[in-house]
């Protein structure tokens, strides 16, 4: 391995550093949320203040006396990471400590789309120079997989179980990026751990923009979605390729860029079948064709709306 070619490579690639979300945290094996947080933090770098909502991310990373975070980090409550971040920004400005630092507020889909939407809206409206990142694993995982406003249609959760009179979650995903964009903020992006480099680039881009930014990162949860731990990336990609999770950017409320699916488009079944939370749609004698058609329609609508074809 000592030929010149390798030496050249060595120069090209920097040494691998331990992530800013240090190992030893207690996220489940294959957790998409921990991967997402690792990628976001390393993209942001150590000069970052971070706030976090209650949820898996907070619980698995900070059981006292341990903390996985290597940047200044605070958790307060389930629904206020955005407001706490706003307070941090205000104090840093007042103390003249706001130069060359990033502020990132984080939360799960529950902490962001449901209980924390008021504080989030306030933060976006007021123009703080903060990036909010929602890690969307599509349910309240920390409390045992209950539905949230971002749980997809027909998914099984512990509070949207399929049964004789139900196919699972009755609602479709709340359009939170759209709501964020409607605040007229300079940058909104969706991303996924399925495409890590795209995620990293978007974080870096967002942090260069002055003002409030919102990112929603799709993060599979092997425990709640019921899929093998090694399938986290694959499932995340399929969510995009089926059209169920559109990946796009918005500036001042207008969609400016999308990740096209084109010829790589896959049928929704390819995404649904490997996940236990949709297993009831494929059970013997389930007669779920009507439901599957509705899900196909959701994908179709996304593809049309965002021009993903």
């Amino acid at each position: 391995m000592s030929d010149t070619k390798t030496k050249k490579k060595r120069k090209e690639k920097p040494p691998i550093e331990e992530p800013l979300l240090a190992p030893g945290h207690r996220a489940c094996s294959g957790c998409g949320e921990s991967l997402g947080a690792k990628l976001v933090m390393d993209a942001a770098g150590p000069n970052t203040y971070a706030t976090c909502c209650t949820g898996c991310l907070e619980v698995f990373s900070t059981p006292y006396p341990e903390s996985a975070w290597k940047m200044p980090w605070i958790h307060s409550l389930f629904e206020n990471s955005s407001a706490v971040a706003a307070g941090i920004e205000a104090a840093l400005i007042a103390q003249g400590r706001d130069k060359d630092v990033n502020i990132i507020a984080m939360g799960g889909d529950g902490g962001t789309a449901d209980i924390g939407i008021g504080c989030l809206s306030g933060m976006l409206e007021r123009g703080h120079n903060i990036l909010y990142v929602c890690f969307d694993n599509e349910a309240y995982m920390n409390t045992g997989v209950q539905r949230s406003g971002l749980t997809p249609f027909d998914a099984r959760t512990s509070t949207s179980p399929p049964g004789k009179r139900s196919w699972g979650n009755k609602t479709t995903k709340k359009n939170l990026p759209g709501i964020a964009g409607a605040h007229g903020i300079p940058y909104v992006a969706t991303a996924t751990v399925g495409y890590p480099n795209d995620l990293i680039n978007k974080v870096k881009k967002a942090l260069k923009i002055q003002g409030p930014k919102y990112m929603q990162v799709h993060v599979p949860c092997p425990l709640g979605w019921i899929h093998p731990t090694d399938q986290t990336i694959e499932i995340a990609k399929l969510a995009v390729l089926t059209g169920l999770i559109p990946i796009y950017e918005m500036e001042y409320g207008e969609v400016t860029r999308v990740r096209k699916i084109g010829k790589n488009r896959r049928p929704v079944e390819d995404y649904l079948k490997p996940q236990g939370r949709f297993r009831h749609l494929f059970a013997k004698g389930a007669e779920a064709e009507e439901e599957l058609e509705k899900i196909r329609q959701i994908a179709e609508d996304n593809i049309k709306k965002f021009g993903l074809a």
Partner: protein
Amino acid sequence: MKEFIEGSMAVARGVAVCRPHVVSAYPITPQTHIVEHLSEMVADGDLDSQFINVESEFGAASVVLGAAAAGGRSYSATTSQGLLLMGEVLFNIAGLRLPISITVANRAVSAPINIWNDHSDAMVFRDAGWIMLFAEDNQEVHDMQIQAYKIGENPEIMLPVLVNMDGFILTHAYETVETISQKEADDFLPPFKPEYYLDVNKPITMGVLGDPNYYLETRYSLQEAIDESRDVVKQVAREFKEKFGRWYGDLIDTYRTEDADTVFVAMGSLVGTIKDTVDELRDKGEKVGLLKIRCYRPWPGEEVVESLKNIDNVIVLEKAVSLGASGMMADEIKASLFDTPHRPKISNFFIGLGGRDIPKESLIKVYNQVKEKPQYNQFVDLKPELLEYPS
């Protein structure tokens, strides 16, 4: 400087000279004037603070929490429904040991909705880990702002402080107030320099998960800190007197109790009315005095016992009810006296709820009732005709 100003302005002036880095609040009557004044000062460049308008009191409390965690002195004000909406954050702030100061323009709680004064809002938070001070008049509430930061930010204490003032009765009353100058304030209150705060140059993690192996000790140390804050409240009151010559008591204050056989116990602006009543009764030869509770949390048990040691009749007047139990303060006074040799009779009354007027005559009536026999859990000036169901 002597100024004839509204109570809310007395508060705003008192806060402004503390140079808060961050002020965040949400409007609610009768607190609103306070933050309006502060936002004007910021707009005019007279106050160099970040003023953050928020979407709710929950947001305001969360903003000041974040600001304090980042090492900033921070301030908010609210009342009633707003204080209740802050509730979850208030407990969190104390647990995080962030010495924020919040002024509460005390008001009744809904339902029915009522914007007038009582103490039902603040008393909900007596177990939240906040130091709770109650001001008697606008001079005291002006002076209490700087004292609050000096107490809470003491490195041995590091606890938040609720400064309580009666809504409307004080917030909207014009009085002459000797205001503290910036120079005087800077001499009295050192800059906020917490030992631990969020900083990219020295990262720490705040707001951890405390499992059963650790949580209990966090409550122990909170209790330890708030217990020790008694001495700091006293010391700050003394230092304040030395510098400014003004004294309102420390944890408690007493009025004409030396040879008294009966005392009223109360908090807030009611103390002023009681003083007048005491004077009137004294003129008639009654041996009556007043015990003012200035610091409700930490509870000044020893001081209460000491000041009641020669008293036969105690009349506790409270502006809040512990529904399903009794008067919160009356119960605490009884508990404090339980292990002492001298146990006076404790009568307790609920008074002025929802802003019901408290004339001197009502206090004299109460006094006469107690002279006859002790009274328990009585609602003063109840209108029986309003309690009848229509037939």
